[in-house]
C-alpha cells in the first residue's frame, strides 16, 4: 500500500494534512495516534470509502481512485464505526460478501464454515448480527474481510472492544496471514498490541504523520509508549491539579 500526499478537509477543519506512507509488501504495519488524529480518515481514503481532496492511494500497485475494481479485488477491509448488513445472520453475511466478490458458491460455503468455526461464531448460528456482542461483531467483520483470501488487509481498530481471548485469536490469525506473505495495516491506540505484533510503525497526530519506519527505528532504546507520548506532545500529570481527588 502506498499513499501520496493525501489531504482531507471537513468543512473548514483540516482532518488529514498531506499523509504519504509506504507500506512494504509482507509487512505488519501499525498506525498509531490519539483519538481524532485522522487515522480512520486516512484509512478510509486509502481503501476508497472517502474521496481525498488531494493525493493518490495505491493498493498493490493499482490506483484506488482511478481503477477501483482492480485495486479492491485483493483487498480486505474492516472499517471502524461502520455497520455491517446486520439484519443478516453470520453465515448469510459471509455468503453475501463472498458472492459480491464474485466467488463461486462451493468455495464460499466451505470457507465461510471454516471461518465461522475458527472464530468460534458457530457455522449454524441463526442469531442476527445486530444481536451479536461487540467482540463477535469485530470477529464476523474480520471473517468478511478474510473470506476472499486478500493479499492486503486494512483494519481500523480491530482490537477495540474485543475481549482478551478473542484478541489473542485475532492476533494469531493475523500473524499467520503475514507469515503466509500477506500485508496487514491496522490502526490502534493500544501500544502493547502494536509493540508485540508490528514490524513497522507510523505515529499520527492532528492529521500529520509524525514518525514512521521499522519498529526498531521508531522506538530506539525507549518503550513505544514513551516515544508516542513525546511525539504526540501529551502531558504527564504533575500532582498539583485534581488535588481534591
Amino acid at each position: 500500500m502506498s499513499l501520496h500526499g493525501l489531504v482531507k478537509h471537513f468543512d473548514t477543519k483540516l482532518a488529514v494534512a498531506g499523509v504519504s506512507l509506504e507500506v512494504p509488501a509482507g509487512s505488519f504495519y501499525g498506525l498509531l495516534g490519539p483519538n481524532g488524529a485522522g487515522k480512520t480518515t486516512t484509512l478510509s481514503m486509502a481503501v476508497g470509502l472517502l474521496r481525498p481532496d488531494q493525493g493518490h492511494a495505491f493498493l498493490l500497485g493499482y490506483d484506488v481512485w482511478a481503477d477501483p475494481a482492480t485495486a479492491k479485488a485483493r483487498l480486505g477491509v474492516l472499517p471502524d464505526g461502520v455497520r455491517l448488513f446486520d439484519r443478516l445472520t453470520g453465515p448469510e453475511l459471509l455468503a453475501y460478501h463472498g458472492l459480491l466478490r464474485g466467488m463461486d458458491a462451493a468455495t464460499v460455503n466451505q470457507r465461510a464454515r471454516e471461518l465461522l468455526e475458527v472464530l468460534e461464531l458457530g457455522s449454524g448460528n441463526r442469531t442476527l448480527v445486530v444481536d451479536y456482542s461487540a467482540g463477535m461483531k469485530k470477529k464476523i467483520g474480520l471473517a468478511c474481510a478474510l473470506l476472499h483470501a486478500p493479499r492486503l488487509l486494512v483494519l481500523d481498530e480491530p482490537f477495540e472492544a474485543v475481549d482478551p481471548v478473542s484478541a489473542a485469536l485475532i492476533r494469531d490469525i493475523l500473524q499467520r496471514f503475514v507469515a503466509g506473505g500477506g500485508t496487514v495495516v491496522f490502526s490502534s491506540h493500544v501500544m502493547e498490541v502494536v509493540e508485540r505484533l508490528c514490524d513497522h510503525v507510523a505515529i499520527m497526530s492532528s492529521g500529520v504523520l509524525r514518525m514512521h519506519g521499522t519498529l526498531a527505528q521508531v522506538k530506539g532504546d525507549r518503550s513505544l509508549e514513551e516515544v508516542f507520548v513525546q511525539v504526540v506532545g501529551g502531558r504527564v500529570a504533575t500532582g498539583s491539579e485534581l488535588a481534591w481527588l
Partner: protein
Amino acid sequence: MTTKAVGVWPFVRLKLRLTANGLRGRPTRIVLFVLGVLLAGFFAIVGYASFAVPGVIDDPHVAGMLLPLGGTAVILGWLFFPLIFFGVDESLDPARFALLPLPRRTLITGLFAAALTGLPALATLAATAGMVDSAARLGGPVAATAQAAGVLLGLFLCVAVSRAVTSAFATALRSRRSRDLAAITLALLAAAIGPLQLAALAGAQRADWDTVGSVARVVAWTPVGAPYSIGLDVAEGRTWQIPLKLLIALATIVALLWWWSTTVESAMVGATAGPRRKTTADTTRPPVDLLLFRRAPRTRFGALVSREIRYWWRETRRRASLVTFSMAALFLPVSLTLGAGSPGSMTIFVGALASLALANQFGFDGTAYATNITTGVPGRVEINSRATAHAIFTIPLLIAVAAVIGALSANPARIPSTFGLLIAAYGVGLGLVLPLSVRAAYALPESTNPFAMSSGGGPAKGLLAMGVLIAAVIISLPLQLIALFIGPIWLWIGLPVGIAYGAAGYLIGSGVAADQLDKRMPELLATITPNRS
C-alpha cells in the same frame, strides 16, 4: 458535597442551547429553521383568526361548536402527527439523563418544560389564543381569564399526550416481542387517516348543524374538549361546570405524565441493558443457501436481491413502509367508492406512490452500504437489484389493487388494463425516484426509536420526494387520458402499452441513477452516515 434541587430552567436552557448549536454555521439548517418559523407563524395566524370568528360575529352557538371541536382537532393533531409524519424532537433524549442523580419527578417536569419550549407549542398557543379573543367578546374579562387558563391547560394536554404516546410506542417497538404488533398498529393508523378523512367529509356533507351541536356538547365533557369550553361556560353562566372541567383536564394531564414517566424509565433502563436471547436452533444448511432464495441465481445480483428482500422484511422501518403502502393502496379504491367517486380515479397515483418507498433507499442502509463500496459493486447492478427486490413485493400488490378496482367497478374486464396503468406509473415513478435516491439521500438516525427524526436536511429532502410523486403522476397522465379517449380498445391494449411505458421510464431513470452512483459512491456514503455526537 451539597446539591441544590434542580428546577425546570436547566432543561429549558439546555433545549434552547441545543437548538442554537444545531443551527450554528449550517446555512441549510438555518433556512429550514426559518421555513419552520414561517410555517408555524402561518398556522398561528390562521388558527387565531378562525378561533376568533365566533366572537367577531357574536354568535355563542357557533362558539359552542367551534371551540370544543377545534380544540379536539388540535389535540388529535398533536397525537397523530408525531406518530405518523414528523417524529418527535429527541434532542433531549431521556436516555442521556440515565446516569444523572435526578429524581423522576424532576426529570419528567424538566423534559415536559423542554418539550413546551419549541415552535409547535408556541404556534399552538398562539392559534388557540384566538379562543380567548372569542371568550372576551362574548363574556367579558372573566370569561377571557377562564378561557386563557383553559387554553394553557389544553396546550399542556397536547404536549403531554404526544410525549406519552410516542414514548409508549417507542418502548413497545424496542422489545422484539411487541415490536411487530406496534409497527402494524401504526401502519394501520396511518392507512386509516385517508379513509377517515373522506368519511368525515362525506358525513359533513350530509349532517345538519343540530347533530354537530350535540356532538360538540358531548365532546366538551371529554378531556380533549373540556379545557377549551370553560370560557364559554362563564359567558353563559354555567359556572358550576368550570371546576369539574378543570378537574377533568388536570387529572388527564397528570395521568398522561405518569404514563410517560413509566415508559421513560423503561426506555432509560433499556438503553443500558438490552435482552439478548438466542431464539432459533442451529442449522446445518450451507451459508449460501441460507442467504439466497431457492431460484435466485448464485451470483452477485442474486446475493444483492436476496439481501434486499430479507431487509424489506427484517428491518422495522422498511417493513412499516411496506405495510403502510399496502394498506393505503388497497383501501384507497374502497374509500373512493364510498365517497361516491370512481374507484379507478387514483390509479396512477397509487402506482407512483409505490415507487416512493425507494426514495431514500440508501439512507435505510446507513453505513452498512460501505460493504458494497469496498466489494466494488457496479452502479448498474446495485440499482437494478434494489429495484428488482422492491418489485418482487410491489407487483403482486399492484395486481391485487387492479383486482380490487375491477371488482368495485363491477367490471372484471378492466383488470388487465388497470394493471397496465399501475405498472406504467410504477415504472415512471421508479425512473424518477432512483436518481433521487442517489442524489438526495439523507441519513436516518441509528436510533431504536423509529420516530426519532434526523434533525437537519432530512425532512426537506422528503419534500423533494413529494415533488417526484407529482412529477410521476404528470408524466403518466397522458396514458390515463388516452385510456379515457379511446375507450374500449384500451381494455385490449392497456396492459402491453402500460408495461412498455413503465419499462421505458424505468430504463431511462435507472440508467441515469447507475451513472450517478458510479461517480458518487463515496459522497453517497458520506451523506447517509449519521453524525455521531
